């Protein structure tokens, strides 16, 4: 088991390394840099710009810049933000925490809703449940994520029950911990709901499909023939047998959720990685872009690692192969 996980982590490290090189090359190929806008300003002399380029290290060849970034990453700084004049990490860490604050509850909530509901729909004997389910999930799948976010904003505006954006109310920090937490939860409610709505339909469909397939199998009929209760049949016999593809999906859903959450953060002005990434791309703040993408990659790798570990724990056949 430990060797299995160690190997997975090794794969992850290699992947991070590869992605970092790829990112450097890609951003190098993109036109313009942080200082490009200054060139348009006639008041700034070309000499100043050359000086600034040297100061930021932009005049160095790509391998040297990459090596410097690796060095600074080893120190935990992940390069330097041109726009804010601070190490990239001081920008990234709080943002990453905020993003996790949204996406972790959203992932958990979607799965906690989708699994029991999907199993029940798969096990239902009534046709109208099936029809309702298909219609409902198709509608949800067809809704673009931006529209969901905008709808959530509209609800906040019209009802006034929820804040329109941001993470905390002004002055919330000065209150007691409890009041601050309540305030945070109140701000989280809409973005998390939007994320769950964006993810739920896909997971539900997969749960129903894989459980439905298992329900057709002969071992389920055999178990039914032994007089087991409906609940036990569905949740103890069918669900674990259907879990394999779902666990793989779990890792993927983390990745998918991150991309949805970047969008929803921007629309609902949640101070996560999303708005930071957008802003730094627009201002060509190189190392912040790289840091933000690398962080997303780390989340993705961790999500998949968690999926692999769960798979190992759930499926005796995989245990044997590993």
């Amino acid at each position, binding site marked *: 088991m430990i060797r299995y996980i160690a190997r997975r982590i090794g794969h992850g490290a290699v992947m991070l390394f590869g992605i970092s090189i790829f990112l450097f090359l890609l951003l190098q190929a993109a036109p313009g840099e942080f200082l490009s806008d200054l060139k348009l300003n006639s008041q700034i002399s070309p000499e100043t710009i050359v000086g600034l380029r040297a100061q930021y290290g932009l005049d160095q060849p790509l391998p040297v810049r990459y090596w410097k970034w690796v060095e600074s990453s080893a120190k935990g700084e992940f390069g330097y933000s041109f726009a804010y004049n601070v190490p990239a990490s001081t920008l990234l860490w709080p943002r990453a925490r905020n993003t996790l604050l949204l996406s972790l509850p959203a992932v958990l909530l979607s799965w906690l809703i989708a699994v029991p509901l999907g199993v029940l729909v798969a096990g239902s004997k009534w046709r109208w449940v099936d029809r309702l389910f298909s219609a409902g999930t198709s509608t949800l799948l067809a809704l673009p994520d931006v529209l969901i976010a905008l709808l959530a904003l509209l609800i906040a505006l019209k009802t006034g029950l929820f804040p329109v954006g941001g993470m905390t109310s002004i002055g919330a920090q000065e209150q007691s911990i409890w009041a601050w937490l309540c305030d945070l939860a109140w701000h989280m409610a809409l973005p998390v709901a939007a994320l769950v709505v964006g993810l739920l339909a896909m997971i539900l469909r997969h749960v129903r499909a894989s459980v439905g397939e298992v329900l057709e199998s002969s071992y389920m009929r055999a178990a039914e023939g032994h007089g*087991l209760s409906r609940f036990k049949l569905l949740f103890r016999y069918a669900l674990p047998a259907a879990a394999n593809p779902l666990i793989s999906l779990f890792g993927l859903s983390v990745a998918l959720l991150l991309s949805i959450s970047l969008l929803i953060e921007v629309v609902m002005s949640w101070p996560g990685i999303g708005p930071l990434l957008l802003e730094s791309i627009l201002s060509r703040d190189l190392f912040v872009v790289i840091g933000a993408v690398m962080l997303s990659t780390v989340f993705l790798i961790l999500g998949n690692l968690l999926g692999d570990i769960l798979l190992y724990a759930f499926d005796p056949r995989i245990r044997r192969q590993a």
Partner: protein
Amino acid sequence: MRALRGVDLEVAPGQTVGVLGESGSGKSSLALALMRLLPRNARIASGSIEYRGANLAEFTSKQLRKMRGAEVALISQEPALALNPVLTLGTQIKDVLKAHSTLDRAQLAARSKEILCEMGFEDPERILRAYPHQLSGGQRQRVAIAQALVCRPQLLIADEPLSSLDAATQAEIVDLLQRLKREMGLAMVFVTHNAGVLWSLADLIVVMREGAVLARGSMDELQRSPDPYVQSVLFPEKSVLMAPREKAPAALAQPLLEVRNLSKKFIQRHILSRKKFMVQSLEAVDLALPEGTTTAVLGRSGSGKSTLARCIAGFETPDSGEILLEGRKQQLTRTVQMIFQDAATSLNPRFTARQVVAEPLEIARWKTELDRMARALELMEEVGLDSASAGRLAGEFSGGQRQRLALARALAAEPKLLIMDEALSGLDVPLQAQMVRLLMDLQARHGLTYLYISHDLNFISLFVQEIIVMEAGQIVERLAPSRLGRSEHPATRALVMASERLHAPGVEAVV
């Protein structure tokens, strides 16, 4: 569509009723209907199922749950598929007990162990902790029976419990059921297409055809029945009149394929421990197949015969030894084709019959699209399939037809050697006979060489020139089919005994 038409059936306490019929005669639907386990698209149109005076057809699902497993139990067709792959066998047996009793943990464990011992397991502790994939097919079927009987039901419904087990294991399971019947006073409905097993087991036999009961009575009464269908299901071997072919001059023919000193090991982890160990799957196997002849490789499951086939076909790389095809080192080639046991899984069910057959031609870039289509139809006709059905999906054909389709596909590659890995084992005896006849025909026409791998002896003497018996990765005996009955070797004896056990006496003409 009507799967069953006006079937009447009565089982007395302690009595065994055999339900006999061809594939598609509705016997499995009957077994499932008795448990009210028919698939969702089926329903009981009329009639009643009475168990001790209560009509099961009108039971609520709660009443059904109480009855299933505790009063009436089911063993289903495929032992490999009757157990949940992700739960330990202990969990699965104990869950049945829990559903029907209020035993505490210690009692559950004790009762599970007891029932496994009754099924003939010597190490019930290990079995309880194991997962289904860690057991052999025969062990799995015994666990499935344990699961069905753990609550001591009065009536057992066995739906083809022997198909897909090797002959020796089948004989073991029949012995087990007979002992249980004696010891537990169990009533049984035994559904099968193999009349042989019913000789020793059934008190009464019901012959079914197209969903209706055609005849009923004891074995002796049925034997005297003049009805040709009854005769054909009772003695499928007799209905297939085939003259044993004159022996080809095997010694004179050039060897098409030579196998020299072939060995293959697999590394496996021990069940429930982290220790690795080697399984010798093939050990120093020597073999020569003369051109235009048929050689049979016999042995129980796990004797290494499939590994041998896979090595020859090029699917496995042997650890040592040589495989020479027409005197040359052999690589994965179209000259050697293989047919598998289960055409349902070896053919893509979403391909049409014509696509299935034409695919090898396409891979070989044979002539033009039109020529390939014409050739595919021709091949289908050659294996006895109606070329008008070329547009149907492979999944829509019946088991026997699918195996013919697999044969047509193999022939498309114009092979010299055809390896049949249990290719007939999944078919019932009349279908096997038709296939054997077809194979002999094709051999005569195209000069094909066959390597026939099997765990039973059906039709062996009719179309095989040499028999090779394998055990634990080694060839233990080589003999002509005529000497099979007189063999002294224990592995060969076991095969012959099992075959006798499973077939009606007097029809051993096949051996």
